[in-house]
């Protein structure tokens, strides 16, 4: 029992990253009709927002402390981060410690801006072009973004640790007679993703803005005939989708140290998730994300990998192929989406 719940948790944390990226992909596809191969890059940029913030917070100045000597007998040079100088040592240290959660605030405006610029500057010009061109230009953009990050941050992964308070291991389920140890940060990640998904759905369901966007996804022309400027709202939706991917990236940092190609790695699987969930279906994307994440976790257990070596590497693709052969529209896909 413990083992099963442990695997479900394992699946949920990877699954939430899939679900968040797939949700953004679906939003963009559903609203703008564009398949965004650069969406993984947005996830990666989010992760590097938190890297940047932690670098900024660690900017220091040096002072010489005459009372202390280093091992050569010279006066010791002490580095003090500016934040510690400004806010006092304790608060400053706490701020640095909490840099990843703080990066959420830092990343939201950046990601919205990146999304806005990307849509207005590039993708807008590709609405009327064939889908193949859209794929190609966003693929090119993904390469460029990835290389820029590589140039400034190097090719190696950069550790972005979780705050001390959240980096331990929690024992959960005691009251149900279970005994499961699980890293706290991963639980935080699952909860955070749940919140973000819930927030996105609530936004689409209960605000006027969201209602118009949903109507536009269903029937763009009619909504335009009503005199509503749907393009503007779609641009904003692109920004929001970018922000969702970015936040997923920010919070994923402590689980896997960010590197410049993490976006591409996730993108391929997220596409599979979108296809399995059903192109254009938001609940489908989320559902498929979690399902495939959990499936992958179970396929990664020692029992599974000794029975069929490497099954964890291919299970998602296998399931995707089976789903597409039996249900060509995916789990929750609607008729008429992307059909010629």
């Amino acid at each position, binding site marked *: 029992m413990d083992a099963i719940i442990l695997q479900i948790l394992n699946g949920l944390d990877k699954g939430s990253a899939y679900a968040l990226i797939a949700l953004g992909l679906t939003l963009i596809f559903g609203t703008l009709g564009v398949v965004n191969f650069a969406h993984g890059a947005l996830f990666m940029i989010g992760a590097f927002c938190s890297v940047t913030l932690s670098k900024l917070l660690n900017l220091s100045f040096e002072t010489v402390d005459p009372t202390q000597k280093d091992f050569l007998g010279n006066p010791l040079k002490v580095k003090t981060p500016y934040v510690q100088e400004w806010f006092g040592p304790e608060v400053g240290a706490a701020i640095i410690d909490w840099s990843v959660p703080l990066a959420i605030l830092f990343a939201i405006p950046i990601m919205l801006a990146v999304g806005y610029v990307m849509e207005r500057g*590039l993708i807008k010009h590709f609405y009327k072009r064939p889908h193949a061109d859209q794929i*190609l230009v966003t693929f090119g953009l993904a390469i460029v973004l990835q290389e820029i990050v590589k140039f400034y941050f190097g090719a190696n992964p950069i550790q972005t640790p979780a705050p001390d308070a959240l980096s331990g291991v929690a024992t959960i389920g005691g009251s149900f007679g279970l005994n499961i140890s699980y890293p706290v940060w991963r639980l935080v990640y699952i909860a955070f993703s749940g919140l973000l998904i819930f927030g996105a759905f609530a936004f689409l369901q209960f605000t006027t803005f969201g209602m118009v966007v949903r109507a536009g996804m269903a029937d763009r022309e009619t909504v335009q005939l009503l005199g509503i400027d749907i393009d503007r709202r779609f641009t904003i939706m692109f920004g929001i989708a970018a922000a969702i991917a970015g936040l997923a990236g920010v919070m994923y940092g402590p689980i896997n140290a960010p590197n410049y190609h993490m976006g591409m790695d996730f993108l391929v699987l997220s596409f599979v998730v979108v296809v399995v969930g059903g192109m254009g279906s938001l609940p489908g994307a989320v559902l498929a994300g979690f399902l495939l994440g959990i499936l992958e976790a179970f396929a990664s257990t020692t029992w599974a990998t000794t029975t069929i070596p490497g099954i964890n590497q291919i299970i998602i693709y296998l399931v995707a192929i089976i789903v597409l052969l039996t249900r060509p529209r995916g789990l929750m896909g609607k008729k008429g989406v992307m059909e010629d």
Partner: protein
Amino acid sequence: MFGLKNTDLRLLLIVFVLTMAAPFILNPFPTESGLAQFNAGYPDLMQKFVIFGIFAIGFNILFGLTGYLSFGHAAFLGVGSYACVWMFKLLGYNVVPGILLSIVVSGLFALLIGVITLRRSGIYFSILTLAFAQMSFALAYSVLSNPKFNLTNGETGLQVYADDPQWFHSDRLPDLPHLFGLSMRATHKMQLGAWEFQFNAGYYMCAVIMLVCFYLAIRIFRSPFGLMLRAVKSNQQRMNYTGLNSRPYTLAAFVISGMYAGLAGGLLSAVDPLAGAERMQWTASGEVVLMTILGGAGTLIGPVLGAGLIKYFENIFSKINESVLHQWFGFLPDGLEDFVITLIYPFVGKGWHLTLGLIFMLVVIFLPGGLIEGGQRIGRALRGKKASDAGKSASTEPAE
């Protein structure tokens, strides 16, 4: 001649001359000069030019003609590589059986994947091929490499070991891939003044095969089959209502391009008998997409040019480091020199991918016909609107 029209024949001749004289053309700088590092006329790189040329020609038969954008063609390249090395392991180092098997196996593999992925078109097709290629990569990297059943030798890569059977190997034959005794590494070096030119057996074998592939591609482009493939790209609805079944046409194109990819993979193993799973990774599939689009999808010569350009970038352009830049801009005043170098540095050397990505985006945005279209536009501008026809895209084929 060869059943080709004059323009096509001229194009074939140009490609023939360029590939045969490549050891000269690609080595313009004297061996001792500072620019010698930009010489591309060494066997390893020349082989890559023609092998990836074959890969791109094949990809273009699918994408350029039918418009189906596959993001998983590296899977066929990888399968071809493995098939060839297995022939080395079982039969011996003669490259002929290996190359033949790589074509057959990749063709069958493409048939299997094509039957499934071609149930869908457009974006779905791209994503499905991507998923299949990634799965093939995972299969090759880990699943099919375990003590019980080791088909790919996983991370290490598949290679020939001393205890392999090699049934037809004899001591008279070279202990490396060879063509009936002629080693693929056999290289004749020619000194001409300050220049040195290298003529490599492996390169010439691959070049001849590429010429054959190029010739076949021209025939396919001009055939009724090629016309039907262009019909698939243009309007599938009209095609179906004209009594044509688009599925087998597309599938045939998919299998043919898969076989081209497999052949390229087999040749990669033939010149260097080590097949690794990374050849199947989706970045490798993306690379052939880049090559084809950059050169000009749907044109005959474009993909070959694109392949050459990208391989040149990868191997030569990437060598430009800071000290080379300082040499080049040494004539500038110090402050200005540093400034210029800071500006350029991100785009050269290790940053070549960035330049490639930018060029690719610019081509997709402004030159959907690739560099060939760019060249044609310039050519037309120079000759004042006179229609050019050399290497012209198949879509404007005039009648005889």
